[in-house]
């Protein structure tokens, strides 16, 4: 092969670094939303690469819904210590006071308050004018039209019919006060690309991605892990140990596990490639109509 040709993964890497640097150069107060999942880990590594040998010149922010897997929080704290990253944790305090949870208030309301509202609160509080997210266009149909620089008005709303045209690698970073841009450096990556990158770059990921015996209950055909005693068990429901792993990570009561033996990235990928369903299937949050993600985006969720 011609020595001056990059493989696709390298090409994506360089494209993402360009995007991340552009944000750091043109915005006053950027932040990187950090969800601890594999996409976040991939994005974080790209940010490290973008500013090496310097430090990442913006903070990471984790919107904690308080129902994240415990392992996620431990992993997060250790990681930030290891790489010296500046981490902001944001919890919707009002939501906590009102004891908002997915069991009593339903998935939609809970997610809206503890995730969407919390995110908006945090962005307003710190007056961030740009927020990186790890979303990819291949994740869900409504995301395939998303820009790399996605404009949000002062209410954080996304207007799919009025997006700025985006050409070449020339990103329009101009915003008025209180408006902001969500930036998706992984736009052109696929799920397989992210895994492959993590594999070849030896990026640590949270062990929940690897199969292990864990306590679960089965609800409506979805395996939910019993991560702590806040999940109310229904009559006759008994957690049982199953060898499971997660394809996506979020709030434990809302994240479906898959039964699996895959304990390494190649094994996960092997299962994934032979698997028959697309990735977000595992998230209870998407179970509404196909347009539900788009609805959430308009409201200000990623």
């Amino acid at each position: 092969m011609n020595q001056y040709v990059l493989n696709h993964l390298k090409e994506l890497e360089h494209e993402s670094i360009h995007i991340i640097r552009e944000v750091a150069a043109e915005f006053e107060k950027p932040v990187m939303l950090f969800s601890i999942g594999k996409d976040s880990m991939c994005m974080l590594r790209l940010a490290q690469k973008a500013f090496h040998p310097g430090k990442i010149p913006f903070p990471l922010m984790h919107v904690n819904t308080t129902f994240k897997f415990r392992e996620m929080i431990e992993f997060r704290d250790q990681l930030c210590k290891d790489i010296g990253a500046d981490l902001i944790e944001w919890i919707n305090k009002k939501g906590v006071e009102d004891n908002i949870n997915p069991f009593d208030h339903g998935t939609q309301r809970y997610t809206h308050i503890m995730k969407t509202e919390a995110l908006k609160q945090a962005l307003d509080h710190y007056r961030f004018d740009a927020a990186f997210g790890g979303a990819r266009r291949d994740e869900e149909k409504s995301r395939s039209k998303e820009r790399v620089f996605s404009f949000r008005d002062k209410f954080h709303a996304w207007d799919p019919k009025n997006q700025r045209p985006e050409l070449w690698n020339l990103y329009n970073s101009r915003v008025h006060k209180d408006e902001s841009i969500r930036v998706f450096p992984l736009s052109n990556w696929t799920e397989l690309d992210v895994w492959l990158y993590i594999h070849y770059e030896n990026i640590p990921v949270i062990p929940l991605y690897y199969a292990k015996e864990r306590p679960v209950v089965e609800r409506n055909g979805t395996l939910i892990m019993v991560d702590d005693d806040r999940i109310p068990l229904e009559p006759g429901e008994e957690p049982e140990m199953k060898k499971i792993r997660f394809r996506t990570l979020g709030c434990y009561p809302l994240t479906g596990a898959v039964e699996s033996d895959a304990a390494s990235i190649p094994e996960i990928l092997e299962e994934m490639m032979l698997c028959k369903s697309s990735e977000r299937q595992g998230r209870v949050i998407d179970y509404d109509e196909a347009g539900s993600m788009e609805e959430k985006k308009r409201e200000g969720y990623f």
Partner: protein
Amino acid sequence: MTRADEVARLGIDKFLETYREKELLRLLTCGSVDDGKSTLIGRLLHDTGQVFEDQLEAAKRDTKRFGTTGEELDFALLLDGLEAEREQGITIDVAHYYYATERRKFIIADTPGHEQYTRNMATGASNCALAIILVDARRGVLEQTRRHSFIVSLLGIRHVVFAVNKMDLVDFDQKVFDDIRSECSDFAAKLQATDVHFIPISALRGDNVAERSESMPWYGGSTLLDLLETVHIASDRNLIDLRFPVQYVIRPDLNFRGFGGTVESGIIRRGDEVVAIPSGKKSRVKSIVTFDGELEEAFAPMSVTVALEDEIDVSRGDMLVHPANASKLDNSIEAMVVWMSDARLEVGGSYLIKQTTVQTPATVTELSYRMDVNTLRREDAKDLGLNEIGRISLETMRPLAFDAYAKNRHTGAFILIDRLTNATLGAGMIVDRRSAEATLEGRTARARDAGRHIRSQLSKVSIEDRSKRLGHQPVTIWLTGLPRSGKSSIAFALEKALFDLGHGVHVLDGENLRGGINRDLGFSGADRFENQRRCAEVARLCNDVGLISIAALVSPLSADRAEARRIVGEARFVEVFCSAPLDVCESRDGHGLYARARAGEITNVTGVDAPYEAPASAELVLDTVKHSLDESVEAILVHLRDNGIIPA
């Protein structure tokens, strides 16, 4: 072969290694609503095993609800994302799809074929190496086929595939295909595409998409998928001309200063001699630093960090090139522009231009012609509307380092941004052909710029001499703030105070200037900019004479103030921000300016329907709510004394 088959055949480790090494091809699909474009993409995804069962199930369900194919699976429904467009049955915007085959990974930019076609196609095409242009076999070459070909060519795509679709509906007739082919060849010859292919297909049935068609034995060429896998794209890249626009300066400590950026073209090697444009300063590449270790060389499109041997002044917006192979550098450029906004492009219009890593104000000085994309004829035009394409000339405030788009898709491209709404208005491709007139005018402009330096050399009285005689440094005190924030009151009180201290001083008041030197100007973005430019030039002349100038102008945009600072000179410019909240200014509204703006009688009033960008680094900030007029004046006098501008 599907991905699952490939994994099974190679084993996972080998598969991953092979997968990693795949080359990326970005392609564009063009066609109108009925050409079967979405069907083709759905078919490509399906036939290459990218569609999961749950997605297929969803599409089958949707086929019953929205489908247009009766009982057969509507492949188009594998794609459409947004609710609104589903209801309308059309694709609205640019969507991206991803798939991989044994040899390559593909990103498809899918753009719709209805009235927003030009804007969306240009957007989708900007990063693509190849375009598939769909032609409906039943309808043959249409106006839109020419239009699509033109835009594809304009955006610099070199590989074009005409896919003649719906061959099943014309009985797989070779003559239909041959006729279309010869007609397309005729006009394709005039375009810049260097590599043109024709394939007869049926996207719905899959003929010649992934599988060779048994119904068209007369066709001996490759299937579409085969062609996409093998078309040679490696040579499309410009590896000759090093262009490294500096994006971000990385300075973790005093020992390291590196320039982060993307090698937009060419190759940069350790030890190379490089020149920074526009400063012209030379140095050598000391190291090419990455997270994964230092590199001997980096090539397009790698994002790296370059450290130089010498400490030369380089910052974002500068470009590193090789000394013997530099880009052009000019304030005036000519370009083809695709207009993407309802607000029309007009001669005299003032915008922000973003090119490489530079953002600077730019004014349209000429609109040579509009291109009718349907007939490909040039026509005279006074302005450009949404989806129109024209040839323009631009004057930029800061000189741009650029190449012709045909030679370099990165340094030859730019976008235009609205200075007030921040919308992306248009996309431009720089043309290197210049008219004789433009060339000569360039010479005049250079002479004019040169005059700037000659003038001070002619005078036998130096600025220092004048300062000594007058007892002060001649500076420009530039008061900026919302209307009624107190600028004029402070300006005139300050003038009196300085005059009483024995200094030569005068006021340039925005409103007074509009009665005379600026009476030909209105309140559009371009006119505001010109208003301020003239004021700054007058202030500079008065400084040259030895006077202290006090300018009181709203000057709402930081870029415009930066230009005033450049004209007057950094050392002589004292920016004073008169800070007062909008509601306070409105309450002081003696002339009823705000009231009229709120009532909609007048537009472009700063604070109401035009933005004010507060200065981030003014020399002085005055809180005109908290402080009295006298206190404000005193604060400025203190600043002038502390900085040796007037004696203590």
